[in-house]
């Protein structure tokens, strides 16, 4: 697959986001498939951040380390990133920022601010200069940028729209003059209908489609995008999003709302998840259906707030004290994020238990061109509910049943009463101490786990049926895994990729894969190999090796291939 990657580096608050937004729109409107990820620091101004765009005429699901174009909006970008340039890669830089001109092949000087000022336009239009300069390497036509400027700035007046057009043309011309004969990436011919979306809005819209009615959360990077999305659309979607004083409160509000009968959720990251675990245990004891998104970031503690890791798996697995039914889903891309939210709510409602959806910063913030979401594919199953009439006056919330599922009467639909407690309780929900009642209730709850296991999602598998190498990964590593498999297959190797999107309980279909042909490697973004440990625990299994990344940066095919070739870490 031929792809073309552009990396733009700059300080926070310096226009990186604006240039990024213009390009994001322009690239997708021209019909290219796109994967765009962000690498940013935990600050509002300054520091060094970058955004990368990888485009192709075919779908792209991950990023690549090597880039075709480097755009330096700050002084450090050139030195920090030039080693990643592909052969013949271009650097667009500004002598005024660099403090010098750089006389090397493929370095193009574009004094962003000066160009704007020379045309008697405000400094802020340096962003449009940069966008025009980048566009010169992609396309012969600036028309698409002009359309975007018109849409973005029409409310600010024609002068602003025209100014942006003018300066972007100047940026474009500077690059064209310097590198006129350069080959540009192939342009797509036929453009299918598609979405451009990142993990956070995909999770949030998946929740809305699944009928979430209540959310409470405390802002925490990188989950805040979900919270703000739901809050921003709460009015027209008839949803309540209540910001809590802390994550303890957020989770308990969710529990209260879910008990009252609505689909309810929260979103957080590791440290906030820690504060929620008490109430998740309560939800398990009182058999209340709750969904929690954990957008992972590197821990322990505050860790690297704006970066990525898959280090919460075992913590999510052991989410609270005691034994209780639970499920953990791990979407690998925005499409899975959208549909798995619906599945998470169905599992929570059917089995009256907490369900965790594990995302991470890489999934949360990365934009991807994907197939359109189909609302008709979203099935809503609220599980066993009874009306007031069916329940009768002697309704028992925790009636002992063969399946372990006790039909729910939502409070307020009496005459029956819905009594639930975190203490051990009898069928009616009142507190008990006897060993017999404890056994009955514990076994009733745990009986549900058998059904949860039977319903576990089968892994997503790509590549060869009779592999010599099997790569096993979970969550946001899906894109990197898929591309790695593709590259190795092109090299003539027989490879299978296994993406696990339900990490607890595991699908039984994993067993023949784990014990089948091929050398097995577990690929994940954490230090200790948490998926590997959990697989080992559940299947008494050990892989032949592992690839792990824990520097806070996302796994990509380059990293995985390098480790595979380099002899790899032995698991």
């Amino acid at each position, binding site marked *: 697959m031929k792809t073309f990657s552009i990396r733009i580096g700059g300080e926070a608050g310096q226009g990186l986001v604006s240039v990024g937004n213009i390009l994001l729109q322009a690239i*997708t409107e021209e019909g290219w498939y796109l994967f765009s990820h962000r690498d940013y620091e935990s600050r509002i101004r300054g520091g060094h951040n970058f955004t990368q765009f990888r485009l192709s005429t075919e779908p792209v699901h991950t990023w690549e380390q090597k880039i075709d174009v480097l755009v330096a909006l700050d002084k450090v970008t050139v030195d920090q990133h030039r080693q990643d340039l592909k052969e013949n890669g271009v650097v667009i830089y500004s002598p005024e920022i660099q403090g010098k001109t750089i006389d090397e092949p493929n370095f193009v000087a574009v004094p962003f601010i000066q160009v704007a000022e020379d045309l008697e336009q405000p400094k802020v239009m340096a962003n449009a200069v940069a966008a025009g300069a980048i566009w010169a390497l992609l396309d012969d036509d600036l028309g698409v940028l002009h359309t975007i400027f018109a849409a973005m700035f029409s409310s600010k007046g024609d002068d602003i729209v025209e100014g942006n057009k003018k300066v972007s043309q100047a940026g474009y011309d500077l690059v064209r003059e310097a590198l006129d004969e350069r080959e540009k990436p192939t342009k797509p011919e036929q453009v299918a*209908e598609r*979405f*451009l979306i990142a993990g956070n*809005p995909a999770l949030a*819209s998946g929740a*809305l489609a699944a009928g979430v*009615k*209540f959310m*409470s959360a405390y802002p925490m990077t990188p989950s805040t995008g979900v919270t703000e999305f739901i809050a921003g*659309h*709460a*009015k027209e*979607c*008839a*949803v*309540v999003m*209540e910001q*809590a*004083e*802390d994550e*303890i*409160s*957020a989770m*308990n*509000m969710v*529990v*209260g*709302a*879910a*008990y*009252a*009968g*609505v689909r*309810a959720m929260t979103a957080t990251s590791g440290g906030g998840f820690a504060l929620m675990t008490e*109430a998740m245990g*309560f939800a398990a004891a*009182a058999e209340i259906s709750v969904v929690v998104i954990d957008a992972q970031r590197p821990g322990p503690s505050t860790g690297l707030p704006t970066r990525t890791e898959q280090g919460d798996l075992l913590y999510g697995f052991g989410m609270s004290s005691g034994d209780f039914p639970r499920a953990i889903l791990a979407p690998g891309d925005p499409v899975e994020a959208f549909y798995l939210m619906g599945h998470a709510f169905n599992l929570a409602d059917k089995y009256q238990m907490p369900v965790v959806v594990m995302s991470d910063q890489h999934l949360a913030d990365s934009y991807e*061109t994907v197939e*359109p*979401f189909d*609302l008709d594919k979203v099935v*809503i199953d609220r599980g066993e509910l009874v009306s*007031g009439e069916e329940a009768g006056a002697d309704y028992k919330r925790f009636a002992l049943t063969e399946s372990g599922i006790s039909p729910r009467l*939502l*409070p*307020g*639909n*009496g*005459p*029956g*009463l*819905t*009594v*639930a*407690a*975190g*203490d051990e309780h009898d069928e009616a*929900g009142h*507190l008990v101490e006897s060993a017999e009642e404890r056994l009955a209730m514990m076994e009733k709850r745990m009986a549900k786990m058998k059904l949860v296991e039977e319903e576990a999602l089968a892994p997503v598998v790509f590549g060869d049926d009779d592999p010599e190498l099997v790569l096993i990964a979970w969550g946001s590593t899906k894109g990197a895994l898929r591309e790695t498999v593709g590259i190795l297959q092109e090299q003539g190797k027989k490879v299978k990729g296994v993406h696990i999107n339900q990490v607890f309980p595991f699908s039984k279909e994993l067993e023949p894969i784990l014990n089948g042909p091929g050398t097995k490697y577990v690929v994940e973004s954490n230090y200790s190999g948490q998926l590997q440990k959990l697989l080992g625990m559940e299947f008494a299994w050990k892989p032949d090796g592992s690839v792990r990344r824990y520097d806070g940066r996302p796994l990509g095919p380059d990293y995985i291939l390098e480790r595979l070739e380099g002899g790899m870490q032995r698991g």
Partner: protein
Amino acid sequence: MADTKFPTTLKETAWCPGCGNFGILGAVSEALEGLGLEPSQVLFVSGVGQAAKAPHYMAGNVLNTLHGRTLPTATGAKLANADLTVFAEGGDGDGYAEGGNHFLHALRKNVDITYLVHDNQVFGLTKGQASPRSDPGQVTGTTPQGVSMEAFNPLATAITLNAGFVARSFSGNKEHLIKTIQAGIQHKGFSLIDILQPCITFNKINTFKWYRSRTYDLNEDESYDPTDREAAWKRSWEWDDKIPIGVFYKVERPTLAEAHPALEQGALVKQDIAKESIKKLIEGFAVK
């Protein structure tokens, strides 16, 4: 009492004979019966502690949650189903220690629930340790040298944060307690009722007799204006020789529900999924 919809003799209680909790249980039952409510319309969200067991001994929906978490849980339930009459109920340890942060923010949020605090100034269930309401100097199992901290003043705190309905009552004064609970339910917004509740086993100072000789109803004085925030705040510091009970402070403020446009259409749990809006929203992700 035999024909009440809210009988209080459904279960054997875990309380000591003569416990101050019995008076509160009886008063809640009579207050609800008096307002003509049905048990299925009422939800008690309680925490952990001897007080938090109260809802199990009466008819009503019950969500007996974690220690200190009654207020957020009750807030979530009320936001999800505004048609329920929602109580949060627990002790002073539950609400003012473990749930202290939630208490502050519930006062600010002004969700339309009634918070009943069984205030016995000790931790009863764990056998008599100091609570935030224990007076300085009080010797307990965890404070052998005596409590070194200032006692927490829930009323002053609530008035400071402009809570909608701030009251104190006494478990030994049933009529006053019934009246205060009913006023709390009828108040639109957050109602705090701090209830003096003697712990006959672990608190030998603040006994029924001690309170009976000190409490007086501040609302009997017609010149007392419960809308005067400053006067209410000053009165909330009166303690020791004379202890006021009654409604200290009342103010009408927008409730939390009014901050959520979705709730203009009625109880959230009764609303359908806004399919058309969601469809439109999702179509917004389309590139072309």
